[in-house]
Each structure stands twice: as C-alpha cells, then as structure tokens.
C-alpha cells in the first residue's frame, strides 16, 4: 500500500486556553476526495489551516507527501507548498493584480517558463474554470462566485497533486456550486488530483466525497467511507445527513417561577 499523501497524527490545536482540535488523526491517499465536515465552529477550518501550516499545532504533527512542515520560510517547506494548491473561502486573490496576474503569480515565482507560455497556461486555466472573460479584470470587479473560480484557477496553476478547498460552495448559487463540484471531479479523473474539502453543503458532499472526516466539538467523530457514514441512523453524523436537529436532553427544563394556574 502506498504512503498517504497527507497524514495528521494526534493533532491538538489551542487558541490560548481553549482547545479547538483535540487529538485529530486523518490520512488521505492519492486521488481521493476527502471531505472534512461538521457543524459550525467544530474546528474544520482550523484543521485545514493547521494542515497547510498557517496555524502551529500545540501537539501532534502534519505530514504532507511524507514530510513535516517546519518553517514556511524554508526552501524545503516551500517545495512542499508548491505541490499543493489552496482555495480560500473568500478567494484571497491579490487585490492589486488582475485575475490573469493572480493566476500567473505561482508560475512566475516558481518556474522559469517564458512569459508567453505562462500567459497561455493562464488562459487555459481560466477557460478550465469557465472564466475566460475575466482575464483583465481586477478581483474587485468580480462577483463572489467568479472570485472563487479565479482563485481555483490560481490554486491549479502549478497542477498540484494536492488541492485544499475551504468551503468552496459557500455563498454560491446552486448552479455555480454544482459546476465547481463537477470541476473537482473532472480534475480528479483527468489529473488524478487529491482533494481535501472543508464544507457543510450536503449536496456537495453527496456528489464528491469518497471519504469523510466528521468533526464534533474539535474531535473526530467519524472517519471513513461516505457510504458508511450515510447508513448511520443515530448520532450527530446521522443527524447531519438526515438534516435533523440534534436532540439535546432537558432542553426545556421546568420553570423555576411558581405558576398557579
């Protein structure tokens, strides 16, 4: 069996005294679409930011392509980072650059390709995300969905074998969201790309997920095949997929003021 592309071992993340992630273990194999899901505030984005090295863990470790990220300023870490793409929730495009310049940025920084070829790659990537008309536009001139697609084009510009997406469907209309999901599936089929997606959009999860990691209050509650998770009938995971409210006992406790009816 080949080594996983991404492995997280006993990850603990704290913000001050508050433990946000508590003992998270997960491994992602090549060409797998892994969805990290859970309710709001369960630590999904924190896990993703810890994986890509933006948050230093309190304990545990993260290995990307079998190597541990130590210092993002190091050239060795930069080499690992170049093998992955990250789609931020709001796109995080550089406001001072046009869409094309944003997409070209990783190519200019990390390759010695001639400008003409870079320009051609940029056009191809923009066409891939169905944004050919946004070439000369600045991020401020794009809609939310367009910004996200442009950011995806930037994340894919170096053809990374590993792609991270933070809530790709958030704030998008169902049609654009479905288009993004289809694109991710197509990328996996054509390029064999591994995708880690943080989302709580059920339609999206049902369409793309091979495996899921369900987080609940910072702890992994389910880690396995999506089909297995879908068959559960009780517990927070089942509640999530069945779109039902999680039962909280004694929600309506007796009133302390005396009522004489």
């Amino acid at each position: 069996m080949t080594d996983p592309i991404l492995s997280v071992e006993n990850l603990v993340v704290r913000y001050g005294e508050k433990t946000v992630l508590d003992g998270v273990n997960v491994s992602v194999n090549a060409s797998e679409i892994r969805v990290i899901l859970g309710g709001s505030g369960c630590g999904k984005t924190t896990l993703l930011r810890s994986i890509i090295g933006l948050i230093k863990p309190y304990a545990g470790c993260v290995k990307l392509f079998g190597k541990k990220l130590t210092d993002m300023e190091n050239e060795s870490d930069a080499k690992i980072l170049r093998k992955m793409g990250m789609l931020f929730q709001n796109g995080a495009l550089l406001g001072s650059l046009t869409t094309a310049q944003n997409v070209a940025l990783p190519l200019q920084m990390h390759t010695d390709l001639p400008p003409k070829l870079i320009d051609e790659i940029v056009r191809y990537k923009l066409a891939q995300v169905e944004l050919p008309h946004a070439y000369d536009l600045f991020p401020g001139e794009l809609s939310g969905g367009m910004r996200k697609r442009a950011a995806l084009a930037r994340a894919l510009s170096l053809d990374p074998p590993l792609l991270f997406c933070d809530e790709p469907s958030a704030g998008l209309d169902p049609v654009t969201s479905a288009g993004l999901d289809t694109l991710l599936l197509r990328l996996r089929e054509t390029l064999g790309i591994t995708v880690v997606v943080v989302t709580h959009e059920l339609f999206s999860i049902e369409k793309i997920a091979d495996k899921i990691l369900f987080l609940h209050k910072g702890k992994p509650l389910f880690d396995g095949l999506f089909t297995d998770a879908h068959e559960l009938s009780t517990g927070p995971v089942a509640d999530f997929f069945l779109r039902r409210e999680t039962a909280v006992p004694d929600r309506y406790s007796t009133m302390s003021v005396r009522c004489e009816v």
Partner: protein
Amino acid sequence: MIFTPELPTSLIYNLLWANTRVPLTYPYILKIVGKHTSETMPLNFSNSKDLTKKVPAVLDRAWISGCGLMSGSHSGRLVLDLSQTERIDSAGVCFLELLKELCREQGGSLVLQGVREDIKNQLNLKKSASAAVKTVPFKKENFLERVGGGTTGALNTAGEALSVLVEMLYWSTIGVFRRQDFKKGGLYEQMYQLGFKAVGIVALLSFLIGVVLSLQSAMQLRNFGMGIFLIPLIGITMIRQMGPLLTAIILAGRTGSATTAEIATMVVGEEIDALRTMGINPMQYVMAPKFWAISLTMPLLSIIATAAGIFGGYVIAILYLDLSTSLFLSELAKVVKVEHILAGCFKSMVFSWLIIWIGCYFGFRVRGGAEAVGRETTSSVVVGIFIIIVANALFSFVI
C-alpha cells in the same frame, strides 16, 4: 404624601399601582401618622398582605416601562395575574425572570397566576436559553497584576516590532541569497508610488515652510541690519534639519499610512496567507520592494525638499531683504559643506527605514476587520511621526 393608619392598606396600594408612571423607588418614604408618628419608614410590602397586580392582554415593553415594578421594593409576596394575558414579548419574558430574582433578593416572592400554556412554554424556553449562555466573569485585576500585565504587553509589542524590523532587513538584504520572491517590477512601481508621486507635495510644503521661516527670521534680522545672515540660517536649517524632517513627516503620513492600510487589508483578506500557501515569502514579496523603494527615493526627496525650502528663503531674501542673487548664492556656498548634505541624506535614509518599519509592523499586526485596519493605520501615522521627531532630536546630539 401622608397616609394615616386609618387608610386601608389596599387603598394605599391602589393609589400606588393606579399611577403606574410613579416608580416605587426604594426608599419610597411614607410618613405614617399614628403608631409611627415620629418616625419615617420605608414602604415595606412584608408589613402588608399580598400585592396583586393585573397584567393586561399584552405583556410587552410598553407596559413594563409604565408599571414601575422593576424599581419597586419586593420584600413581600407579589402576585401577577396573567389570566388576561394572551401575548408576551421578549422584554416581558425577561422581565418576569428578573422580577423573580429581585423578589428573591429582597426576601419576597413572585407568584404568577393564570399563566397560559404557550406563555409558560416561552418562559421555559427563555430559562433554557439563558442557561446555555456561558459568560466569563470579569476579573478585576489588582495593582500588581495591572503593572505586570502592562509590562508583559509592552515587552511583547517591542519583541514583535523588533521581529518585523529584523525580518524586513534580513529578507530585503541577506535573505536575497536564500530566496528571491520579489514581485516582478515591484521596485519600480513602489518607487513611483512612494517617491515620484510625493515630489509635488514635498516640494510645495517645503517651499512654504522655507518662506515662513525666512520671513520670520528676516523680520528680526533686518531690525539689526543683519539681513545677510538669513542665508546661512536658512541654508543650514533646511539642509540639516528641516529638509529631512519635513520629508519624513510628510512620508510618514502618506507612505506610512498607505503601507499599513495595504498590508492590513491583505492580512484581513487572507492574501498574506494565500502567498504563504503558494510558497511565496510575504515579507520579501510585500516588504522588500517598499523597503528599497523608500530607501532610494527618500534621500532624493529630502534633497528636493531642501532645495525648495532654500528657494523659499531666496524669494524672501530677494523680495523682502533686497539681497542680490549672486550674493545669496555666494553666501550659501560659503556655509554649506558636503558633510551637511551627507548628514541630511543619512538622516533621511534612517527616517525612511523607520517609516517603512512602523508601516509594516502595524499592517502585519492587524486582527479583525475593517475597523481594525482603520485603527492600525491611525496608530501607524501617530507612532511614525512621534518616532521620527524623537529620532531627529537624538540625531541633533550625534550629527
């Protein structure tokens, strides 16, 4: 208000309750005539029977504001008759909860009468919702804790600021041998933005300061027939002090604020994080072009400012003191030495590093949203100007 003991208690209550605009503030002094003739005592419900209050069909904030129950004394048994009440708003629900607490604290009790089922449910929901809210109690710090906290905070700030300074100097100079994550064309762009675009305002303000300074000096010097001394005065002042200082203050307001706002917006919009995840060093990508642009352009701007200021002095010398151009130039050449010009350039170079360091530090430390960006930008300008004036004062002793 005087009530006699003969006055039935119920009537007292009726009088009080009827005028719902009168709050039952404690102590609501009533002079009791009779047993307590010589005494004044606060109204105390415990001395009386149950107080029953009828609540209207709608228990809402309008009724609560008028009923005066929130400020009354509740040491007795308070009965609220809700049999007529069909609807209760959020203020009403919270009011009942709070009133219960008030009664308990003052030794009384609250009884709700004739509560409808749906209102009961609302009250129960409020209780469970309040229980779910966790608040962190405010801990009042003593003097030592405050001093300790303040010292630690100041040391942390100094540490962070020094770390940004070291990173800026490292990645702009020696770090180039390790990585070259420069924005292509960034240096020229920044030189144009930070330097060239500031030429107009720097020259104009320096000229005006030169005019004002010269005029004030000339008025005094002319009284003693020593107008010619205006030339060394304005020459030395502008070259050594005012030229570099004025440029630095203008650029601290212009470039410092722009740098902080740009970097802070990038931090808030996750652009810095995006650069990191792309394997691009944000310090080198964002700060290095600014560092070199301001280091190269500021001494030039300072020379322009000095020349403009001296030109202001020349205008006054010609128009006010009737000195000739040749005299002005020859006297100026006598006093101005190369070391004065070098001292001015060195000062402006150091000022440029201070401006870009402070601009970047406040930009990178931003946390929060748009409001935080504004706050840090303001701090950047204020601290920038302050540090420049302090540094200039220190320079006056050294060079």
